[in-house]
């Protein structure tokens, strides 16, 4: 294994501990003016000499007193004493020409948290003096306090700051309240992949989720862990691949045909691997860059927003810290009865009706021998057989009425899922070095029998100070290996709702492909068994994907001068995905294929596809080299200003490969295969036209090359006014030289005003208030387009065995990046006592030069042209609000996220179709959810419908509207080119969404739950389609509600059954507005209960700290707008079942 070597090398680097001692930290708080640095006592004696004042004191104070530097001329005694006693743990009184000096009182105290456990390392300060104390590991502290009334201020990173008025006591216990939710989890620093930006210096829109919230869930996928934790970020449901929808979106949508996915940065560089390679336990924080000021540093890649994932690191001067966590997550079986399926009895009634109408007659004589359902076969027997046969067939049909395929699926194909997670990490550091190491193991047994996911992750990082304050070296690596077994798709290849799959543990034969009687007799017994037995298939399947992925980072930081650092970063990343699907000779797929091609003639049997298995392999891989050179500058500029700037250049080279291959006649034991001849055409038993043996080998390599230059700077004046700017230039190999010559320079500027730091600011209800405004550009790419006339080699040979190619693009020399202009306005605020904290933002996104299609005269040989011809606009609001509702023994905090987003296509050539079989001039194009059909003035993903005028009272026909009249001209209504007939119902994606998380804690117990909501969108539900029903492909329980007799139109909107089916009538009904539902719903996503113990509080505890927790996920819908029982996140799929996890976290 070649890949082991670099890992071993870096692992070595990571664990090489430098053998250097601990560096002492120089503390010299006092000012040193040597000629005047004298004991306090001496000055007091001088005062006594010069003024004749009396000195009153005991002897203890002198050893506590600090030396004094003083330079005064013609000053009063009061002035002199004021200077002398500044910063002294002493008090004085001046009365009757006497100076009375005494030691301040010593206050002893303890800091504890709401659970009564000690809070170590809390800072204890006294208002008006300069010193402070730090609480010990047991929470104890002592500090000198003036005898006059004063205020104690206690602060700690993980807790709310606390102020305590002192009333002469000398012993206190201070209870600190946890910072919960974003109050604690809003990292004070955001990371944009290039630099850490202190939040108070930021002008742009950053949202950060820290480890506390990431660790709340138990999913192995980091994106699911942050679901509902970041405003404006949405995990999209019901996505359709053909429409270029993305699984995750940040602030809506701003591209049409180009890449819609946000950029994911892991450890400073864009991540090219699978998101499942990242163990969420290793993640320190996820920062989402939403506006131009935040994201334009990523330039032409940032148009869809940026997710910056930073992994955990050790800390300098921290003793070794080992922690361990584990969880066990049990899931229910998916609810197979969720999806609408026509009942067996109804289905059989329909089959009988069709049979009586001679519907199956042509199929019975069709030379292609199409498969017939078990009921139809029985009906044929009933028709042709003797009276005894008839009775037997009738009895069998009646038995089928009581059967339901889902029963066997549920029993034999599904199970409770069981996910196990184990994670161990070690971190720490000396003054010269910090380290982190982790190992994780996950095993998820899926709810589908024989499917599972197993993952091992290893990571480590080490940072050394090679030369104090000058040179720092950091190294890290991350390694992931996983195996996904996917042997069960959960569906079978037969649409009849009444078939049984298993009988007394034995797999049953199910009709599929060809008629069973034909299968049984054709070939005179020389063919392989042609039966399809789904339950056996489940056990024959051998389909797995092996992912490996590793990253190696090396970084060097060198301080050139004070405030000026040079950084060099290098990352090598490599990932591969090896998919292997072995379909042995016993599998139906392989037997079917071998049989179809078998040639029997003149007593000869020839098998062009040899006996043995079929092994499909699909290997994809990437390797990426990233190099970055960067200068960081951070310095005082002018008396009240600070300038922070970074600038640099980076170069990226990502090489990808795809390798698909197939072996026939595969023998797993020998690992051997047999050659086949792909060129000839072979006659098929199914009567299809002669065909070649499927050829699946395909190799592609890809190269993405980028060179980029970037700058990011901000100037902060008097902690009040902040100006920021960033700029970036990208060049890449995608566009050809001409686009690079012109270059693209994306920039942003931003400003912020910390109004609460102004002297005139007096609004005590909001002690912190900051306004922000930014504007700038980011970009996006579509790798499928090119500046040149490009052709693509076709995957298959032509029928003569030659390679062929298709021209995919006419030349487009003016091709360029998509540009997205973003304006962001925000306000950040914190209420009194930090009871309320939040931010509100409004943004406008304007996409121009978007890749779209435009029509060409077909006479040119091209009907369309993909270029920078489209435009989109979007705007929206993001609100994040955290409140502390109850403080004290019981603590209750809430975190509310609310987002509004609305996009609209502003420019698009509607005469071009994304699907050559559909005509965009017809409204049918916009009623088809499986094509991307932008219409200017509406959201990119819109739900359109046809007007519904109820059922015809005479015969139950659906009725629509055409030319001002109720109409039943279905063909015209569904294919009209008059767009007035197209009703815009609303957007298909939520307009309003967010979450509300509540956390309550009492002593060692904490409980939190997250409610997600989505509003303002629509979906189309399915209903009966008689054409599909007759074809046997899909029934629907709405059948039971169909119009049967006059008067039914008052209770139902399901049209009457007509035979033969009228496809236009079916299409009209399925596209009418009566099937449009509101998607609005509120869901209780999860609930977490935890119990924390710490050794300091429970000395008997064998570990430093321990947490037990229970976590329930996918709990259920609380409210939904539709009354059809449809989960709007799962319109066509089964919702994720509920899961319950039990877990433990330990600090050893």
């Amino acid at each position, binding site marked *: 294994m070649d890949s082991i070597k670099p890992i071993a090398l870096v692992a070595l680097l990571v664990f090489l501990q430098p053998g250097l001692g601990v560096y002492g930290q120089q503390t010299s708080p006092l000012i040193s003016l040597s000629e005047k640095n004298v004991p306090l006592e001496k000055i007091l004696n001088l005062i006594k000499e010069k003024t004749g004042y009396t000195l009153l004191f005991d002897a203890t104070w002198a050893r506590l007193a600090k030396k004094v530097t003083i330079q005064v001329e013609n000053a009063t005694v009061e002035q002199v004493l004021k200077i002398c006693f500044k910063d002294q743990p002493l008090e004085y009184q001046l009365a009757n020409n006497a100076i009375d000096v005494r030691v301040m009182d010593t206050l002893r105290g303890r800091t504890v948290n709401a659970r009564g456990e000690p809070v170590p390392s809390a800072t204890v300060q006294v208002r008006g003096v300069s010193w402070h104390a730090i609480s010990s590991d047991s929470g104890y502290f002592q500090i000198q306090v003036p005898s006059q009334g004063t205020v104690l201020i206690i602060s700690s990173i993980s807790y709310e700051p606390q102020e305590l008025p002192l009333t002469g006591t000398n012993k206190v216990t201070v209870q600190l309240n946890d910072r919960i939710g974003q109050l604690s989890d809003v990292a004070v620093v955001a990371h944009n992949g290039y630099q850490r930006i202190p939040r108070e210096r930021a002008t742009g829109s950053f949202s950060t989720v820290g480890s506390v919230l990431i660790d709340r869930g138990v999913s192995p996928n980091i994106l699911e862990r942050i679901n509902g934790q970041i405003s404006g970020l949405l995990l999209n449901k019901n996505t359709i691949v053909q429409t270029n929808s993305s699984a995750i979106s940040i602030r809506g949508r701003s591209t049409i045909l180009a890449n819609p996915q946000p950029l994911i940065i892991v450890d400073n560089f864009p991540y090219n691997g699978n998101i499942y390679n990242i163990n969420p336990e290793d993640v320190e924080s996820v920062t989402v860059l939403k506006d131009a000021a935040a994201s334009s540093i990523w330039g032409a890649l940032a148009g869809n927003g940026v997710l910056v994932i930073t992994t955990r690191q050790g800390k300098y001067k921290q003793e070794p810290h080992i922690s361990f966590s584990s969880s066990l997550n049990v899931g229910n079986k998916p609810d197979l009865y969720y999806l609408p399926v026509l009942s067996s009895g109804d289905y059989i009634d329909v089959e009988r009706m069709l049979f009586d109408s001679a519907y199956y007659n042509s199929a019975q004589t069709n030379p292609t021998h199409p498969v017939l359902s078990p009921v139809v076969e029985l009906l044929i027997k009933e028709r042709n057989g003797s009276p005894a046969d008839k009775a037997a067939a009738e009895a069998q049909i009646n038995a089928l009425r009581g059967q339901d395929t889902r029963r066997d699926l549920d029993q034999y194909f599904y199970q409770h899922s069981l996910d196990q997670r184990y994670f161990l990490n070690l971190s720490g550091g000396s003054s010269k070095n910090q380290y982190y190491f982790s190992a994780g193991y996950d095993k998820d047994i899926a709810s589908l029998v024989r499917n599972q996911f197993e993952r091992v992750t290893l990571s480590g990082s080490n940072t050394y100070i090679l030369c104090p304050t000058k040179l720092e070296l950091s190294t890290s690596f991350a390694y992931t290996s996983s195996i996904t077994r996917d042997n069960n798709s959960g569906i079978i290849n037969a649409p009849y709702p009444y078939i049984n799959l298993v009988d007394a543990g034995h797999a049953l034969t199910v009709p599929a492909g060809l008629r069973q009687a034909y299968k049984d007799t054709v070939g005179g017994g020389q063919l392989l068994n042609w039966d399809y037995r789904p339950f056996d298939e489940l056990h024959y399947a051998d389909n797995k994907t092996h992912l490996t992925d590793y990253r190696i980072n090396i970084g060097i930081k060198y301080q050139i001068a004070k405030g000026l650092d040079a950084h*060099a970063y290098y990352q090598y990343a490599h990932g591969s995905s090896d998919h292997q699907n072995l379909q042995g000779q016993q599998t139906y797929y392989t037997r079917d294929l071998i049989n179809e091609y078998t040639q029997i003639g003149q007593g000869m049997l020839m098998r062009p596809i040899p006996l043995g298995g079929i092994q499909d392999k699909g290997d994809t891989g990437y390797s990426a080299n990233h190099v970055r050179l960067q200068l960081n500058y951070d310095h005082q500029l002018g008396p009240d200003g600070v300038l922070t700037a970074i600038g640099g250049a980076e170069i990226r080279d990502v090489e990808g490969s795809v390798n698909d291959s197939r072996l026939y006649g595969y023998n797993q034991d020998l690992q051997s295969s047999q050659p086949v001849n792909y060129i000839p055409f072979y006659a098929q038993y199914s009567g299809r036209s002669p065909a070649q043996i499927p050829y699946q080998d395909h190799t592609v390599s890809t*190269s993405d090359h980028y060179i980029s230059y970037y700058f990011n700077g901000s100037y902060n004046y008097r902690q009040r006014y902040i100006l920021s700017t960033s700029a970036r230039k990208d060049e890449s190999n995608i566009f050809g030289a001409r686009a690079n010559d012109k270059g693209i320079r994306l920039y942003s500027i931003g400003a912020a005003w910390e109004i609460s730091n102004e002297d005139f600011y007096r609004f005590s209800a909001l002690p912190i208030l900051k306004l922000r405004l930014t504007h700038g550009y980011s970009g996006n790419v579509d790798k499928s387009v090119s500046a040149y006339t490009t052709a693509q080699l076709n995957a298959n040979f032509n029928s003569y065995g030659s390679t*062929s190619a298709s021209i995919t693009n006419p030349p487009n020399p003016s091709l360029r990046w998509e540009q997205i202009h973003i304006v962001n306005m925000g306000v950040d605020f914190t209420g009194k006592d930090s009871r309320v904290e939040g931010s509100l933002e409004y943004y406008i996104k304007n996409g121009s030069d978007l890749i779209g299609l435009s029509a060409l005269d*077909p006479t040119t040989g091209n009907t369309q042209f993909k270029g920078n011809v489209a435009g989109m606009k979007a705007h929206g609001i993001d609100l994040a609000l955290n409140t502390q509702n109850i403080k004290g023994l019981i603590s209750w905090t809430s975190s509310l996220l609310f987002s509004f987003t609305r996009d609209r296509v502003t420019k698009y050539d509607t005469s071009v179709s994304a699907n050559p079989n559909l005509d965009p001039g017809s409204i049918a194009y916009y009623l088809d959810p499986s094509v991307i059909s932008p219409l200017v003035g509406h959201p990119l993903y819109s739900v359109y419908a046809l007007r519904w005028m109820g059922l015809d009272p005479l015969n139950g026909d659906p009725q629509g509207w055409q030319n001002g009249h109720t109409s039943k001209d279905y063909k015209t209504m569904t294919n009209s080119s008059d767009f007035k007939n197209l009703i815009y119902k609303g957007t298909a994606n939520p307009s309003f969404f967010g979450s509300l998380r509540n956390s309550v804690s009492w002593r060692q117990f904490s409980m939190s739950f997250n409610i997600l909501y989505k509003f303002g969108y629509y979906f189309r539900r399915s209903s009966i389609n008689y054409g599909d029903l007759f074809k046997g492909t899909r029934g629907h329980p709405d059948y039971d509600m169909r119009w049967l007799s006059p008067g039914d139109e008052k209770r139902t909107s399901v049209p009457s059954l007509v035979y033969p089916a009228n496809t236009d009538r079916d299409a009209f009904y399925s596209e009418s507005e009566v099937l449009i539902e509101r998607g609005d719903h509120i869901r209780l996503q999860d609930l977490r209960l935890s119990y924390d113990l710490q050794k300091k509080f429970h000395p008997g505890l064998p570990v430093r700290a321990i947490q037990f927790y229970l976590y329930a996920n996918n709990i259920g819908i609380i409210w939904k707008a539709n009354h059809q029982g449809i989960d709007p996140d799962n319109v066509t799929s089964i919702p994720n079942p509920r899961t319950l996890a039990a877990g433990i976290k330990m600090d050893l």
Partner: protein
Amino acid sequence: MLIPLAGICFLISCKKDFLDKKPSTDLVVPSTLGDFRALLDNENVMGQTPGLGELSSDDYYLNYIYWKTKTSTKEHNAYVWAKDIYEGQNNVDDWDLPYQQVFYANVVLEGLQRITADSGGDAQEWRALKGTAFFTRAYAFYNLAQVFAPVYDSAISPADNKLGIPLRLSADVNPVSVRATVKQTYAQIFSDLQGAKDLLPVSIPLANRNRPSKPAVLAMLARVCLSMRAYDSARLYADNCLQLYNTLIDYNKVGSVPFPFSKNNPEALYQSNLLSKTEVLLAFIVPDCIVDSVLYRSYASADLRRTIYYSSTDRGAPPNLRWNYNSSLYLFSGLATDEVYLIRAECAARVGNTASALGDLNTLLQNRWKTDSFAPVVAPTAAAALDSILLERRKELAFRGIRWTDLRRLNKEGAAIGLARKLDDGQNPQLLPNGMRYVLPIPPDVLRISGIPDNPR
């Protein structure tokens, strides 16, 4: 430290190359002989000809209910020669696909100009590719002209020269299309074929009959001349073709299997088929597409074509087409030797050479009839021979996309063949001889974007 520095220095030093790297090996900027061959071997683009002519012809009729409810707009209207064929629908493959062939051919012709191939094998391939591109362009222009341009008439004076089709001779997509005259159209077809004739190999590529050869060009020239009613030239080209290649298949040796003729069957000179999206004509897949009864009855029972070409999927049902010269569901529309024999026979008859005409006819028929039942056709006069030949032409070349051109040509000769459909709703649409509806309208998107004039209907 050194690795990244060295890396960055190396990469910056060759930045131009770094940014010129091809993003994917799947993407080809066509520039080599292999690339051009791959483009011309794309049978999804190259091997297809318009279906509107055959759809408008009288080889078949449709079950009324099927026609009424299941056919697409274009096919529905073409069947009854409606005034508006497309009803506003764009992307008419009958126009778009031949012009895509022209575009590919132009890309290849322009690309070849940038390559100098002087070494032996390369030079031969360079010539073959150039010939193929010329042939492809001529083939596309001819097929378009049969559907979208009036029939060629040498008698028309230049003053009322009718509009033909746009002749795009460069790959540049920017120039606006204009319609050439019919005369210019055929002149271009002629010059492209003449250009192809001597560049292409004399022998037929036996395993790649999608690639044209010199016999294919000659057969095409014969077909073009016949459609222009230039019978002398047609006879000459047909004769030249058969001198080089004259193989016929003896149907007595063809078994009763579903797809008796492969794409590389010995009669095929050049493979192409009617547009695969011509739905009503998908052989036996559409049992509602029925062979014209008169045509079907004209095959004698000892005529092997009756059973090899046709059968019915259901006992007692009317016969459907089941045969093809390409073992697929799509109708063969390419060039084959049987057609060339018939062209040579017809042209001989038209100049009064009865013996030669009947000779060719009987050579063909002897391969079509049961051997023991075959009796040679005799004819007392050249005119009688011509009638026999035209009848056999109708029977031999049915469902090959040739009938439409023949109808236009023969009516011009005065045959006065009128077409009519009998519909169950009592309507009886007709297509009168030499009517304007023998020229189909130009697709709406083409009219809209290019502004060229439509054909009068």
